C-alpha cells in the first residue's frame, strides 16, 4: 500500500505545484510508482508545470462522478512510465468534490502506487480540507517571508486539528546572500517559529522558471540547484538517511567583504 502525501501551504505562490511536480518526478526517477494529483479544482496547473496539458481527456471530477474510470483519467508522464498525473477539472469549482470522495479516490490510488502526491489549493477552506482528507502525511511549503510563515503556522494548527500531523516543512526560495546579510529569515528562524520538523530546503533558482516554461521538472537538469534540492528532499521522503542539502552561498569573497564594510558604515 502506498503513502498518500499532501503538499499544502496556506499562502498561494510559494511553490506547492513546483514542489509536487519535482518530488513526484524525483521519486519516479528512483523507480517508485508515483501518482501526482491536482486537487486545485477550477485552477488546474500541475498539468502545465509537468508539460502534460495536451494529453488530458478526463479529470478528477470525472472519476469522482463516475464518468471515467481512474485508469482512463490517469495520464502517463512523457519520460517516466511509472509517473502518472490525475488532473484537476478546470470548469468546475471546489464544491464539485467532497472529503469522502477524496478519501475513496486516494484509497484507490494507494492500491496501485507507492506514492500518491496531492497538490493542494491555497487557502484553508473546503479545497484544502478535501486535499488533506485522504492524506497519511502532510508537507507544508513556505518561503522565508512573514506572510508565508504566518499562513504556514495556521496550516500547522489545522493539520494537527485534523489529526494528520505532525506535518513536515519544505522552505522554498531561500536567497543565501540575503540570509547572510541578515535581511531574510534563516532556516533556523523559520524552524523556531513553526516548530515542526524540516524535510528540506530549496534555494531561489532561475532554472525553475526555465524548467516550468518548458514543462519539464527541474530534477532532470543536473545543473539546477533547486533540482538537486528536490532530489535531496525525495531521498529524505523515501526514508534515506541523508542530511538536508546545504545551499552554497554563491556570493564571492570580495562581495562578501564589501557587503560587510557596507553594513558597518550604516
Amino acid at each position, binding site marked *: 500500500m502506498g503513502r498518500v502525501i499532501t503538499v499544502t501551504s496556506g499562502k498561494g505562490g510559494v511553490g506547492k505545484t513546483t514542489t509536487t511536480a519535482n518530488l513526484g518526478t524525483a521519486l519516479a526517477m528512483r523507480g517508485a510508482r508515483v501518482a501526482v494529483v491536482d486537487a486545485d479544482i477550477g485552477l488546474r496547473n500541475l498539468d502545465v508545470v509537468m508539460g502534460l496539458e495536451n494529453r488530458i481527456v478526463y479529470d478528477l471530477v470525472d472519476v469522482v462522478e463516475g464518468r471515467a474510470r481512474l485508469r482512463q483519467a490517469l495520464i502517463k508522464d512523457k519520460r517516466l512510465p511509472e509517473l502518472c498525473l490525475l488532473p484537476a477539472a478546470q470548469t468546475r469549482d471546489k464544491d464539485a468534490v467532497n472529503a469522502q470522495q477524496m478519501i475513496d479516490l486516494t484509497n484507490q490510488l494507494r492500491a496501485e502506487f507507492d506514492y500518491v502526491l496531492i497538490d493542494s489549493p491555497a487557502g484553508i477552506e473546503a479545497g484544502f480540507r478535501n486535499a488533506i482528507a485522504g492524506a497519511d502525511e502532510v508537507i507544508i511549503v513556505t518561503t522565508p*517571508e*512573514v506572510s508565508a*510563515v*504566518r499562513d504556514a*503556522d*495556521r496550516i500547522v*494548527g489545522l493539520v494537527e486539528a485534523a489529526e494528520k500531523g505532525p506535518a513536515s516543512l519544505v522552505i522554498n526560495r531561500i536567497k*543565501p546572500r540575503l*540570509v*547572510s*546579510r*541578515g*535581511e*531574510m*529569515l*534563516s*532556516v*533556523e*528562524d523559520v524552524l*523556531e*517559529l513553526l*516548530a515542526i520538523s524540516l524535510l528540506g530546503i530549496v534555494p531561489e533558482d532561475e532554472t525553475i522558471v526555465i524548467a516550468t516554461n518548458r514543462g519539464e521538472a527541474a530534477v532532470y537538469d543536473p545543473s539546477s540547484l533547486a533540482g538537486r534540492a528536490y532530489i535531496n528532499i525525495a531521498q529524505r521522503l523515501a526514508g534515506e538517511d541523508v542530511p538536508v542539502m546545504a*545551499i552554497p*552561498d554563491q556570493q564571492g569573497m570580495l562581495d562578501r567583504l564589501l557587503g*560587510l564594510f557596507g*553594513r558597518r558604515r550604516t
Partner: protein
Amino acid sequence: MSFLNGLFGRKRDSSAELAKQRLLTVLIDDRYKLTPEMMAQMKADLAEVLKRYLPAIDADQIEVTLSRGEAHDLLKADVPLRRATDQSSHR
C-alpha cells in the same frame, strides 16, 4: 548561512530579526485569539483568586504575556506584591 550569522553576528535591527520578532508576536496572537477584553477579565479573575492567599495584590499591576517556547507556548503572569511598607503608605 548560520555559520555566517554566528561569525558576523546578526544585528538586532536587521530586517530578518525584525521579521522574526514580529512573527513571534503575530503567531501567538493568531493561535490564542485573546481579545484585550478577555485579557483584562483574565487579570481580574487572577487577582480575585490570588487575593484569597495573598491580599497584597493589585489587579491593575498584573502583567500577562504569551510567548512562544521551544516545546510549548507559555503564559506568564507577573504579579507584583505590595510590600508591608507600601501597604502602610497606601492606607
